[in-house]
């Protein structure tokens, strides 16, 4: 019987060519067939959901900060273990191949997220949300214009390098900061609005937050749609 570490190895990408590993997961049934085989050695699962849970339990056991077993998926890329918490609801009607597709898609998402974080660090020395936290600290220290400059620096640099996916991910992870900083993010991303799918949702979020604070006036976001 394969060990848990062996199972994790199915997710491990060679550091030199990590994309090839994703390719392998997409093109082959290694991981899923392995678990299926193992699961079926003992008792044949009654439902697809049981099969999925079996797989995820196995993976779950390898990670840290374990949440609900059916909601956790772990992967290892470029030697770094990464964790994603995701909705994992597999109805009985899902076929084996569909289930595999879902696992593969989720794994690809984990890898893509991890890569984005790595790119942030390469560009800025820290992640995008961490930069926004720095901006919040500057603002708290009374340096509000410097905080705004940091936000504009962040997005301008990402756009200059063509990293629209990174900028988009910041919009999905941005902390609930001050109204000035939230409007700065909306303004800084205006020139790239066609490339940022998350921006409309972010604007809704900003409006909701500002309304809750009782600071809302239409002029705050007018012209930034």
């Amino acid at each position, binding site marked *: 019987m394969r060990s848990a570490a062996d199972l994790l190895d199915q997710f491990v990408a060679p550091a030199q060519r990590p994309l090839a590993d994703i390719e392998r997961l997409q093109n082959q049934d290694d991981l899923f067939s392995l678990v299926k085989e193992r699961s079926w050695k003992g008792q044949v699962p009654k439902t697809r959901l049981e099969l999925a849970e079996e797989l995820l339990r196995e993976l779950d056991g390898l990670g840290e900060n374990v949440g609900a077993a059916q909601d956790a998926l772990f992967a290892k890329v470029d030697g770094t273990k990464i964790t994603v918490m995701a909705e994992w609801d597999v109805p009985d009607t899902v076929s084996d191949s569909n289930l595999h597709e879902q696992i593969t898609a989720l794994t690809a998402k984990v890898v893509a997220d991890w890569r984005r974080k790595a790119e942030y660090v390469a560009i800025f020395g820290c992640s995008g949300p961490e930069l926004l936290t720095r901006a919040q600290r500057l603002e708290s220290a*009374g*340096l*509000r*214009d*410097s905080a*705004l*400059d940091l*936000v*504009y*620096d962040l997005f*301008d640099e990402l*756009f*200059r*390098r*063509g990293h629209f996916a990174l900028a988009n991910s910041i919009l999905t992870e941005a902390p609930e900061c001050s*109204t*000035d900083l939230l*409007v*700065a993010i*909306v*303004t800084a991303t*205006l*020139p*790239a609005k*066609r*490339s940022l799918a998350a921006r409309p949702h972010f604007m809704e979020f900003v409006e909701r937050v500002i309304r809750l604070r009782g600071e809302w*006036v239409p*002029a*705050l976001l*007018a*012209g*930034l749609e």
Partner: protein
Amino acid sequence: MNRLKQQGEHAINKVPHVAIAITATRKDQRHLGILHRNHDLEETKLLHLAWHHLLKDEVPTTDFRWVSPSLHPTRARQVAARCRQVSKAFSLRAEMPYGFSPPTDCFSEETAQFLFGASKVGLTCATFALAIFEFAGVTLAKYDSWLPRPDDSDWQGQVLEMLENHGASTEHLTAVRNEIGSLRFRPEEVAAAAIGFPPAIDFATAKQMGESIVAVLNDDLETRNAGSRVIN
């Protein structure tokens, strides 16, 4: 024209975040820029397109009058932040061309940078200011209400001649020549737009207010000239 402040009466460090600044350089020529304040540094600068590839961000002279558009303070801060960003970006490249392109869509579709590609030739001091506000999501003028005027083409022809004498590239001169006859947003009309905002100003109102602004600025010019004659 009460909102058009004079530095003798209103120190520029009273600019809350951002303002349009305008002066008459000759009886028939105005120049315009954006005053922007960095509160962290307690510093107000004038960002203006002085000439072809000559973007300046400097402490303004006392010749300018200024007006702050009625923006929400949070939005005005963003325009000021945009001024700093553009200043920083172009201090490294010094490639802000002069031309008669409209102030809209001045950023690259690919990188979202404030650039001039094949479809953008360059800006004047007035359209540069409008473009910066646009860059921050603030539309000061109803561009589609603007109308061409015969003397605008004359002025554009003079600018082309100056660009030729300045040694602008052949490609740029050709592009600018092709833009002669395009709509002109005059500095005094942009100042009028700042006074009237919100809403975005229409051409007829801007033109009418602009004429009053020119009268005020020409009075300033006469006073300055008289003062310099006395000193000389």
